[in-house]
């Protein structure tokens, strides 16, 4: 598909045609619909890691808390946790095969590491919080609910990008 692919180079391979990658991603989502009966999800698995971590430190507090408490004493025993593990694994296999594993803090050439770390951390806290509020993230709400044509999920998608563009404009220096 890609005419530039060079099998002889030792550097990272070029990315897949995005439309083809989208087609594969869509097929995976469709398979999830037809086999699991649910869509994809990532933030649910992360939140459950949070519940397990907090539960290890303060078991009684978590057991009695109204949100995490509902997940029982073993929050990791849930299909979304396994899906998240699979996502890590699938990403790893693909990245290794394409020689794209490269430890680094990705940022603009002149941006300070501190700025980038701050952005990644605050973005993560917001995402963890907001994905619980909206019961899903880009995969669980936007992609899954969008493919279902669910009203709330499409509103989530629109709100996401509207706010994302605004925030990215303020955060643009990390890429300079």
């Amino acid at each position, binding site marked *: 598909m890609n005419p530039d692919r060079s099998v002889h180079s030792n550097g990272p391979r070029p990315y897949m045609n995005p439309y083809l990658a989208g087609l594969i991603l869509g097929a995976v989502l469709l398979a999830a619909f037809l086999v699991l009966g649910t869509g994809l999800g990532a933030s649910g698995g992360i939140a459950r890691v949070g519940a397990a971590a907090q539960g290890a430190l303060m078991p009684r507090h978590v057991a009695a808390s109204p*949100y995490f408490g509902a997940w029982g004493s073993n929050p990791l025993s849930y299909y979304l946790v396994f899906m998240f593990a699979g996502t890590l694994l699938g990403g790893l296999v693909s990245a290794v095969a394409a020689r794209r594993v490269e430890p680094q803090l990705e940022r603009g050439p002149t941006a300070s590491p501190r700025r980038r770390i701050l952005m990644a*951390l605050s973005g993560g806290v917001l995402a963890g919080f907001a994905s619980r509020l909206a019961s899903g993230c880009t995969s669980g709400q936007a992609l899954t609910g969008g493919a279902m044509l669910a009203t709330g999920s499409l509103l989530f998608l629109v*709100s996401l990008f509207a706010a994302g563009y605004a925030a990215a404009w303020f955060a643009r220096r990390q890429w300079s």
Partner: protein
Amino acid sequence: MITTFFGNDALGSSTAMAVSLLVGFGFGFALERAGFGSSRKLGGIFYFRDMTVLRVMFTAMLTAMLGLHLALSLGIVASDQIYFLPTVYGAQIVGGMLFGVGFGLACWCPGTAAVGVASGRLDALIYLFGAVLGSILFNELYGLLEPLYTWGGSGVKFIWEALGVSAPFFALIFSGLGVAAFWFAEWIERRTAGTGPYFGSPFLKAFSVAVLVAAFAVAVLPSTGIDRAAVSRLGPPPETAILQTMQAGEDHVEPEALADRLMTGDPSLLLVDIRTPGEYSAFHIKGALSVAPAELPETLAPRRDKGTIVLYSNGMTHPAQARDALARMGFNNVYILTDGLQGFMRRVLKPVSLREAPLTAEMTAQVDAWRGFFLGTATARADDSQGSAGDMPGLVETAWLNERLGRGDVRIIETRSQPAYNGGHLPGAVRMDPEHFRGVVGGVSSMLLPVDMIVRHLGLLGIRPEMTIVVVPSEKIMDATLIGTALERAGHRRYAILNGGWEKWLAERRPVDTLLPAITETAYPSPREADPFTVDYRTVLEHVHRRSAVLLDVRPADYFSGAKSDEARAGHIPGAVNRPFADDLTTTDGITSFKPRAELEEAYARMIPSKDTTVVVSCRTGHQASQTRFVLQNILGYRKVFWYDGGWAEWSSRPELPVETSP
């Protein structure tokens, strides 16, 4: 026809976990192939320099959308096999914006960050760490956020419904929108970054045509489409599920069913009384455990999803709130008792003779069996003259008290005269003249003293709030009820009256001595609020004008009518009804006691429409009225019984107040 793990309710199975791992693998693989292991590439969409996110996401969405609708149309999968995401407008819009800010700042989202970590990106690891913290933060703030979390919850909503078009038609429009977005992405990328490699390429042309043809094929297929009814039936979010369960009454246990299960001694059933310990000790359903609402999660933790937990209180509000909270903590086996203890009394324990509808012989036997089990066989029949504490709440029997003589947590108060008391009294009993609790207040004589003076008295009697007080009357039960009223004003509700009083105790030859009781003075705490049951003449006058209460005058009939009078004016409060206090009593062999409960129930049911009717009880000075108030509130369970302490002595002395006489 496919049965999904969701449709089979098997998402918790280990097979589903394995399948999820596989699906996740494909998900991560596709994301990485697309280049989403790089935040710079992901963030490109926000600066129009790399529109890969748009291309990949929209293609994936269209693929899955067309595939799903095709599968539904062809009957490959049924609507009830898919978990359709519910719409919660407020939470999804606010959540979407917050999430978008996070995406804009970090240029990661949870799924891509997983792939980023796999690609060695430190910023992805930091992002995921933050997301874990953010999730914990949400859990900590959930109490405050709950209204937002459920704000605009609307169940499953489809965009095509909102627009008034069919799903396949909207899918076609959406596909057209997607194709336009692809061309826009290529064009803007070419303008800003000089890339946009597929703009006008044969590939993009072919791909665009393929998407539109597929969408058109889905649109023209004869389609059963989404079964709206099946979708609405399933998969609500937890919060909605709780609400729906409650609305459907699926979380209720009927009193009769509970009674039957309790009688079988079923060990999987746990009955929990969430009222105050005082109310619990006064009366509770046999076999119930007393747990304060705040301690429910911890106490019930070992029974989570094991057997059946039934909560009850007097009504249903508090158990419903407690059940709601427990359900959110993952307790799926908590039920509440329909109509609470009141319902249990009415539907299970109410004697056959008092029931409105005649019962079949079978039902009569059933009610007797329930009463025998829950109240003890001695009181199984309604026409028994001697009630137990269960049948006559507010009273205790001589045998009960005899067992508790000498106990530090029980204080006995006798009301007889001093010489009589000194000649022999119940062991450990103190003497209290009810007049010690009365005096001139606001110019009106014989008023119950202010609470700070009452608590001083209680302190001198060595009474502490946790003590159970038993008042022993002698002939005049109203002496005991007046002391009871003083105790209630001080906030002390743990008291009972000895059924049959001193005379019965003596007749049964129970222990008597002449020793001084050992008393250590205490400082009884003064309640912060005024007692809730005393009303003054202004309130009564308002009730007269608004006819908003049953005004119950308990003086002898000739005083009520005005034939006799020893006050400023003769007669009664306009609109009042008469039930002399002495009508509630019966004397046999020199022992005065209350009439059987059944008789009292019947008499008052004729005068007062329901147990929630507001009743104001009065007499001449409040003394006799304290007895009727005790009967109504403490024995019969009327819930809104007020006491006009000033009574006729005050009312007749205020010339501005209206008076009525009856022929």
